[in-house]
């Protein structure tokens, strides 16, 4: 469905994307994973025709460089930085983009309803919350019912509740049979949506893997802060160190270094040793 072949993008002497090649199958969800500056957003902007590049990007049989308008007709795009006309209402915004995408005005109301913004249609976009704007962006991307959805860090600016709601909406979209390409550096997002992960760093592809393998393959680690009852700190430290954890004392609790996919392991270890964990926090 989508084919990137030897994509290279340079900004002056800086190479943002370096000889990137990969395919995305129809109805698959591919996550581009990597730290800031890895080249994820640049690759997406090349697909959208917003940047000039060398190499080829094909969508079906269409060349994104030469047939950009036809390619964009097959894409729905949710940007990382939401840039709408702030004084336009949500409904007018949807109607404006519906006209640009040759869809019926009724479709504008339908997508607002689909993303839960029907009752906010009269509000200026500038007055919507971050989560609402993100849902509006998803609604606009779905206006023409495109076969491919392209999302750039779709939940990066959302709080936990809004992120949850948005991921639910995206899961529905994916189930409806769309091909999804998205960039992310959030593990839970990758696990919830992706069929495959392409890991990038410094503009290059490092590897591809299944979402479940990502923490282990990359050795992704995190720190879990555990709050423990008074008097059990020392025994907890002993248990965790015996279990192979790197652990340190932290105020009324301990700080444990774990693999990102094994955050519950120290809690289980303490539970097995009859040490109660009063609270925890993932750092």
């Amino acid at each position, binding site marked *: 469905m989508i084919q990137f072949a030897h994509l290279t993008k340079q*900004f002056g002497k800086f190479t943002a994307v370096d000889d990137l090649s990969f395919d995305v199958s129809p109805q698959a969800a591919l996550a581009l994973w990597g730290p800031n500056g890895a080249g994820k957003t640049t690759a997406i*902007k090349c697909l*959208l*025709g*917003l*940047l*000039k590049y060398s190499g080829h990007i094909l969508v079906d049989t269409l060349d994104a460089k030469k047939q*950009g*308008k*036809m390619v*964009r*007709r097959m*894409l729905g*795009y949710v*940007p990382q*930085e939401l*840039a*709408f*006309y702030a*004084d336009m209402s949500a409904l007018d915004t949807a109607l*404006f*983009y519906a*006209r*640009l*995408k*040759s869809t019926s005005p009724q479709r504008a109301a339908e997508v607002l309803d689909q993303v839960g913004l029907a009752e906010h249609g009269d509000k200026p976009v500038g007055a919507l919350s971050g989560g609402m704007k993100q849902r509006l962006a998803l609604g606009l991307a779905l206006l*023409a019912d495109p076969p491919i959805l392209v999302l750039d860090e779709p939940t990066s600016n959302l709080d936990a509740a809004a992120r949850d709601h948005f991921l639910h909406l995206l899961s529905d979209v994916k189930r409806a049979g769309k091909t999804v390409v998205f960039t992310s550096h959030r593990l839970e997002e990758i696990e919830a949506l992706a069929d495959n992960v392409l890991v990038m760093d410094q503009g290059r592809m490092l590897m591809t893997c299944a979402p479940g393998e990502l923490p282990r393959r990359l050795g992704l680690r995190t720190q879990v802060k555990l709050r423990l009852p008074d008097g059990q700190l020392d025994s907890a430290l002993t248990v965790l160190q015996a279990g192979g954890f790197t652990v340190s004392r932290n105020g009324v609790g301990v700080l444990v270094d774990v693999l990102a996919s094994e955050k519950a392991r120290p809690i289980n270890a303490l539970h097995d040793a009859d040490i109660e964990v009063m609270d925890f926090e993932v750092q």
Partner: protein
Amino acid sequence: MSSLSIIWTLAQKELRDALRNRWFVLYTVAFAALALAFSYLSLAGAGIAGFAGFGRTAASLINLVLLIIPLMALTIGAQSISSELERGTMSYLLAQPIGRVEVFLGKYLGLALSLLASLALGFGISGVVMVLSGSGAADPSAYITLVALAYLLSLAMLSVGFLISALTRKASVSVGIGLFLWLGFVFLGDLGMMGTSMAMKMPIGSLFAMSLTNPSQVFKMAAILNINATLDILGPAGVYAVHHYGQSLLAIFLATLALWAVVPAALAYARFANRGDL
């Protein structure tokens, strides 16, 4: 959807935005109010209705157009592309299934229509005053030509504004350059030309050719020729122009203004279309 429908959708949005832009509204109101005041005072001072009344009103309107219309057109043109680039809305717009030519033409059409609306209001009010006073019947075709010339000037300045906007990324920079150019065209142009001609002892033909490099000057000469049929009041350069080009002078002015409208717009589009990174 055809390209024309997309262009019209974008033009409607630009028109709506312009009518909500407080600077644009302020310029329009100022232009309309001053046009009304000048018309009333010119006709009242004429004492009698007729060509004298029309001539005075038209002369006042020429000065008013020279001052306000370039400012209005340069400012909105200068903001057209750069402000959307700065806010990131251009990038999102171009991620839609539309081409850059459609975006450019839609923006240009929308702003050109908003300038037309502004001019129609000012000249309309002035025209009504003249008709009510009885002097409007003196020369309606000269009045219509004056409106057309003012509109051509506004398009020329709009195109220059678009070119500035396409060459910059920040709206504040493009508006600053626009204001600087406005000062140059409207206030410093005459002085610069006089100084250059004196310092370089420029032949009269070169002085006339040099005046064509300023769209405001071209409008002024065309408008005076239109109401007076002679450029004597512009001094030796005016006499030279009438003597040398005769009947084709108005056509030369119209063609020059048209070139000022087309060439900067074409250059602006070329820059916008080839801007690789958004």
